[in-house]
């Protein structure tokens, strides 16, 4: 019964669709890194997802083995589950990255404000000294 589920013609078509889709994700990810639209740091999880999913889709024996290990009766669900786990991990990874980015943003804003204040102070000092300069010259 389970053998039948992963080898029938319908499943074969699903597999082709899945392989094309995963390959596309991998290629698009690499192209985006090449164009510097995506940093390696944020691309690695996408690529890992692709590399893990491809053998699951292409190799029915492996899919059956993993499904058995996880106690999953309907093997295609294993592929879906693996994909979902990666999506959850990727989203969590982004939440952490956004938090860090937000903290850096705040630090940058504070640093800019401090620099602005220093520039203002220096400006005022130089204005004050240039305002007194003509007087200095006038009085011998």
């Amino acid at each position, binding site marked *: 019964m389970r053998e039948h589920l992963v080898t029938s013609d319908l499943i074969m078509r699903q597999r082709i669709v899945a392989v094309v889709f995963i390959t596309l994700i991998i290629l698009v990810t690499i192209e985006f890194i090449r164009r510097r639209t995506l940093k*390696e740091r944020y691309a690695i999880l996408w690529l890992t997802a692709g590399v893990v999913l491809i053998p699951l889709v292409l190799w029915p024996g492996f899919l059956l083995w993993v499904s058995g290990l996880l106690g999953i009766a309907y093997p295609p669900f294993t592929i879906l589950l693996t994909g979902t786990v990666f999506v959850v991990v990727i989203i969590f990874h982004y939440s952490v990255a956004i938090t860090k980015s937000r903290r850096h943003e705040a630090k940058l804003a504070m640093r800019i404000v401090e620099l602005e204040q220093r520039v203002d102070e220096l400006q005022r000092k130089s204005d004050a000294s240039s305002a007194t300069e003509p007087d200095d010259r006038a009085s011998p």
Partner: protein
Amino acid sequence: MADEARTLFVIPAYNEGANIGPVLEDLLRAAPPAQVLVVNDGSEDDTLEIARRYPVHTIDFPFNLGVASALHMGFRYALERGFTQVVQFDGDGQHIPAEAAKVLAPVLAGSFDIAVGCRIEHPEATSSFARQFGGRILSLLLLLLTGRAYRDPTSGFRAYSLAAIRRFARDFPDEYPEVESLVLARKFGLRVTETPVQMRPRRAGKSSISLFGSVYYMVKVCLASLVIMLRRY
């Protein structure tokens, strides 16, 4: 001699409060004293305060950006201030100032754009199996992508010519720069050599790379190096 005066030592420093003082004292003791730029990479300790006690240039990042960004900043700083050579130098005491002349020599002579100081004693002799294995993979990657065998590709004791400074001021890796910059150098047509030097073991603190970190390091470096080959610069 005139050219040596236009050499900037760039020290990326993250939480090196325990080490940076002696390192700077060592560097400034040389005659003529070295021109040094300490890039404080968002340290949580007193690295910056200690560095500012010495007659050195300092840059203070508002938060930790990593060695790569610290070096990138160093190249930009050097270019803007008219330095014609940069020596990349560790803030943890591993590198010996007296050895800098050896690393600088090929660059000052104009025969190479990058000179990598490699440990005289075998770098693998004292390291763990995982480290050796990682080192092998990186050497193989470099052999594949640059066509040459590097003895110590992760060494951070390096000298750069003006051509290399100019190029790297524009494009430099954003993380873990050592191996990737050698692939970039090949891509940019920069001439690279390795120079044997003495190094010391680290004085205080421990290496910042964890197990997860080292797996990420390997994957990132391999991926980034391969993508460099696909890019046009």
